[in-house]
């Protein structure tokens, strides 16, 4: 035992060792099942290492060759797909969620059946994404119920081939993502809006603000941290988009791989046991995620003064000088 530890022991019982014991399982499992795998993934991304038939080729060090190949061939297309599919689902999601959050918390016009409505819109979030995609596949197949209904109502004269058209496939993925996530986002934003001091609205009302002004000048600036949090976590979720397009298109991203996302690409390399390329895709994903994680971190560790850690440090520095 060091002299310092002995000294502190004289004054009070030290519980520090219990802290380490309690957090040990978490960090042990994290190190074994996430950190070591991540490091080996990064390591193999610099190697030519794949299986061809029963033979394993490599690992031979090739430097950045895997990355060069990724960016020269398919990855930009799949990144574009992922971003586009995310946007198609996210834009309506954030608009509707903001609208609903503002309506539900509107003190002037009370809406009924809020509990029921929240229950219904959150439901799709808990549904198994792969089963949901399978359902959409069956419903929108060439002679499925949707075509059958539209023919009965006379809206169309020919069945629409939803699954072989670029924009209908994109829209279906977007619609599913929208349905699965807008309830969640609405509830989060509502909680944020309800956290705004009602005195501000009362004061604004006395000053003659209309509800439009209140929303844009009071609500929006004050819920900004949560809004940022929602946007960034949705981006991270979008990066991981897999189940829905994978099941809907049977892993092919058809037509013409327009629905192939980054993770579907990673999945293909994993199944063909191309560890080098799978590693390189993972590292690209890791770098993008790391940047987004830093934003989430700064939002969540923001203290009550609304400043980020970096801003506070800056302020301290300035204060020190003055």
């Amino acid at each position: 035992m060091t002299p310092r530890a002995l000294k502190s022991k004289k004054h009070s019982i030290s519980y520090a060792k219990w802290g380490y014991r309690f957090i040990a399982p978490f960090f042990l499992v994290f190190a074994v099942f996430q950190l070591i795998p991540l490091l080996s993934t990064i390591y193999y991304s610099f190697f030519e290492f794949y299986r061809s038939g029963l033979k394993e080729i490599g690992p031979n060090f090739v430097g950045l060759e895997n990355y060069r190949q990724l960016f020269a061939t398919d990855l930009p297309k799949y990144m574009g797909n992922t971003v586009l599919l995310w946007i198609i689902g996210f834009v309506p999601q954030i608009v509707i969620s903001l609208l609903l959050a503002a309506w539900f918390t509107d003190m002037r016009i009370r809406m009924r059946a809020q509990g029921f409505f929240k229950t219904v819109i959150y439901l799709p979030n808990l549904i198994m994404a792969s089963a949901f995609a399978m359902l959409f596949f069956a419903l929108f197949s060439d002679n499925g119920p949707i075509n059958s209904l539209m023919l009965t109502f006379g809206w169309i004269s020919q069945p629409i081939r939803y699954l072989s058209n670029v924009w209908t496939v994109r829209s279906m993925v977007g619609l599913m993502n929208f349905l699965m996530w807008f309830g969640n986002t609405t509830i989060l934003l509502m909680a944020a809006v309800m956290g705004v001091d009602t005195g501000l609205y009362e004061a604004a009302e006395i000053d003659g603000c209309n509800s439009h002004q209140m929303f844009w000048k009071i609500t929006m600036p004050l819920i900004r941290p949560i809004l940022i949090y929602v946007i960034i976590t949705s981006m991270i979720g979008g990066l991981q988009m897999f189940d829905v397009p994978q099941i809907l298109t049977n892993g092919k991203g058809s037509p013409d791989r327009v629905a192939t996302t980054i993770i579907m690409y990673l999945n293909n390399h994993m199944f063909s046991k191309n560890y080098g390329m799978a590693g390189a895709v993972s590292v690209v994903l890791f770098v993008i995620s790391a940047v987004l994680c830093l934003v989430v971190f700064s939002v969540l560790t923001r203290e009550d003064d609304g400043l980020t850690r970096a801003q506070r440090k800056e302020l301290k520095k300035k204060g020190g000088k003055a």
Partner: protein
Amino acid sequence: MKTHHNARGGKASGVRLFFRYILMAILCFLCLFFFYILIINATHSHFEIQRGFSFLPGSSFLMNLNNVLNDANIPVLSGIRNSLIVSGMSALLSVYFSALTAYGIYAYNFKFKKAAFTIIMLIMMMPTQVSAMGFVRLITAIGLKDTLVALFLPSIAAPIVFFFMKQYMESNLPMEIVEAARIDGCGEFYTFNRIVLPIIKPALAVQAIFGFVTAWNNYFLPALVIDSANKKTIPILIAQLRSADFLKFDMGKVYMMVLLAILPVVIVYLLLSKFIVRGVALGGVKQ
């Protein structure tokens, strides 16, 4: 108060309210309509479904159920069993060990406390897919490939659950209680299990539900880990159904299979929806 505002809002707010209810009705319709078709079609035979959609339920529910359960190519019953084991264990492990970790950081002072907290917060939102390749190689090397253990053991490190637990402790667990327990001679571990856990029970329950649902719905990693037919979980079976030759498939069976996959979660949700929706609002974090 209410009447005062309504009176002042008058006709304009009536129109506004009408539009709001219309949009709400459309959204509700969108959320429920697909499930309505699912339930209806699960009660129709393949031929009835091929003839065109009918809004009324049919009489083939039990036949479809029987067909699904007896299909040798899609082991549904073992699939449900495996999914239950993996989801139940994931929920249990993630909740218990995250609470343990959160308590370790909340209740004790130690040198690397801040560093530990920062690390967890930084990796909180990191997609697990980034290390999937190394993970599969690792479990292959240590003999855990194609086992259910490989699917639930990693949930011991669940940063999001940790964050929720820590927030909950900060507002609901006064340190005086812990100190009182110490004076009464309780050991640290005993205090956590017998005094802290009961206090944070609401948080444990909410996170256990979310943990269960997330694991139940998980497809990416199980598909990479599991090979044997009798160890497959439900999402893998759904994917298998999708890649089968679709034109030869009994559609009644397909709808029934999808229904079986989502039904357990829907039932739990309908029973506990108030609790769950409040949990979403409180936690603020769910991946």
